[in-house]
């Protein structure tokens, strides 16, 4: 199974939709890698355009955000845009159904945490790194700031979603089974 985790970036907003993650004008691409430079291009945070080209964003392997992430269009391009930017986990209070399903279908993780846990992570100072232990269904957030103690949260993982991740996605799983 692939390994999950790495440097995290925080997107402090609820209801981030898939049009913001990857605008429709890029849906004419027929390769996933062509989506790479356009991830989160139309995102507004605090009403201002998000800098999707910042070093922090370039380094990020994990995205942490608030509620109802990935709502709107069914475009799997939103998940691929993360994938081709080497982001392998999105952590949120909750997800829109299709986006969450698309993540597991691609064999990568959509982790739901209680709002209080997310809030704690958002309050941490310094640069954050996430480690995930899939067997224990636990994740640890560490900060570059030594004064900041790491936080470990446990999460729920549906056994079917786990099987999808282990198989490398829904196509591989379904091809074996049906």
């Amino acid at each position, binding site marked *: 199974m692939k390994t999950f985790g790495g440097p995290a970036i925080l997107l402090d907003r609820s*209801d981030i939709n898939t*049009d913001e993650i990857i605008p429709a*004008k890029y849906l004419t691409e*027929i390769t996933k890698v062509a989506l790479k430079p356009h991830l989160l291009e139309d995102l*507004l945070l605090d009403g201002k355009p998000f800098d999707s080209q910042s070093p922090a964003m370039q380094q990020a392997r994990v995205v942490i955000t608030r509620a109802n992430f990935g709502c709107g269009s069914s475009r799997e391009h939103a998940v691929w845009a993360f994938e081709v930017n080497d982001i392998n986990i999105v952590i949120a209070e909750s997800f829109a*159904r299709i986006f969450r*399903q698309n993540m597991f279908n691609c064999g990568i993780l959509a982790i739901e945490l209680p709002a209080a846990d997310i809030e704690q992570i958002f309050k941490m100072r310094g640069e954050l790194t996430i480690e995930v232990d899939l067997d224990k269904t636990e994740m640890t957030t560490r900060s570059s700031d030594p004064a900041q103690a790491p936080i470990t949260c446990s999460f729920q993982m549906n056994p*079917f979603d786990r099987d999808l991740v282990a198989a490398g996605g829904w*196509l591989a799983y379904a*091809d074996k089974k049906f």
Partner: protein
Amino acid sequence: MGKTIATKIFDAHLRDTPTPGNMILDIDVVMCHEITTPIAIMDLMEKGMDRVFDTSKIKAVIDHVTPAKDSKTATQGKIMRDWAKRHQIKDFFDVGANGVCHALFPEKGFIRPGYTVIMGDSHTCTHGAFGAFAAGVGTTDLEVGILKGVCSFRAPETMRVVLTGKLSSGVTAKDVILAVIKRLTVNGATDKVIEFVGPVVDAMTMAARMTLCNMAVEAGATSGLCLPDQVTAEYLWPFIKDQYSSLEVAVADFRKWHSDPDAHYVETIELEVSTLAPQVTFGFKPDQVKDVSELEGTPVDQIYIGSCTNGRIEDLRDAAEILAGKTLAVGVRGVVTPATPAIYSQALDEGIIKIFMDAGFCVLNPTCGACLGMSCGVLAAGEVCASTTNRNFNGRMGKGGMVHLMSPYSAAAAAVTGTITDPRKFLNNN
């Protein structure tokens, strides 16, 4: 305990239960369009799995950008076209015969009560109007659907939305669904199925029910459903007349899908619509909804009438009722796209196209076009559009543009005045 319509459909299609709460269903109709399908086709080809589970259960259309606007969209169309030919997919709709998927496929009689339907398109919930379980999926789900005819869902939890009272003149299904989304918020129905019931739904045409179910996903719902009845049977009659000895027999048969009286709902909400005013969105989320009076006078640059939400003949008639004998306000652009060729043709016969043209509208061929900001009426930064579509997300109709969602009546009223306007001013019986 009794079952809801969604549970009945799930039980009738159950292929596997990998873990409690996850259900793999057999799919009756896999619908495909040129934005989300080509990558699935290319991936299947690369993996040496270029097959389809059942040619007759696949329906395909080029609708989002058509005719092609550039080399990239031309390539997407070509991939679809070649694939349909290779697999002898009979129900493939190309330039001239194509229209917006969620208007075209129902019109062809492809959707029936009790069916399971998937498409790589979030507004697939539209087809729930026929008492089908219809859900939008991503490309990987679509790919597996094409290859194996199955799809996985969580066991359905149903929320019941009871619509009571009677809609007043100038207030439509679009206003009702906007009011419902305002009440539920954009994730109020996430992972749930919405069942729309009550006298208001009973009195709705199939077109109105499709408008209602179309936007269920804007509240996060997996699908929106109406119970199939006489109205459903009449709409489908040309396609089912060999199957049933009479309309009554069909209606009686459809009843087997109805939710049982003791079915369990996770939540029931009631909305009395008799005093409902026309609704309009503000901001970038479809639950940001106000009475039209609260936004009255907001200037607009463009009017857009069309889409899978409101591009049907009933919608064009509503708009034409207000536009007849009037013209677009100075400086305002009007764009109308009848959702299918049959609707376009009907609108020609009824003189509606002439009304739009006389008013100064640009009449487009059936396409999704500007609804998702890909072609045919994209906004410039700072521009405002009064639109009959279903999404007002930031950048949806063009970077920096603002979209106000509303009914065809309200969009037509805005066309005439150049500002957001209560359409009831223009309707005779008020």
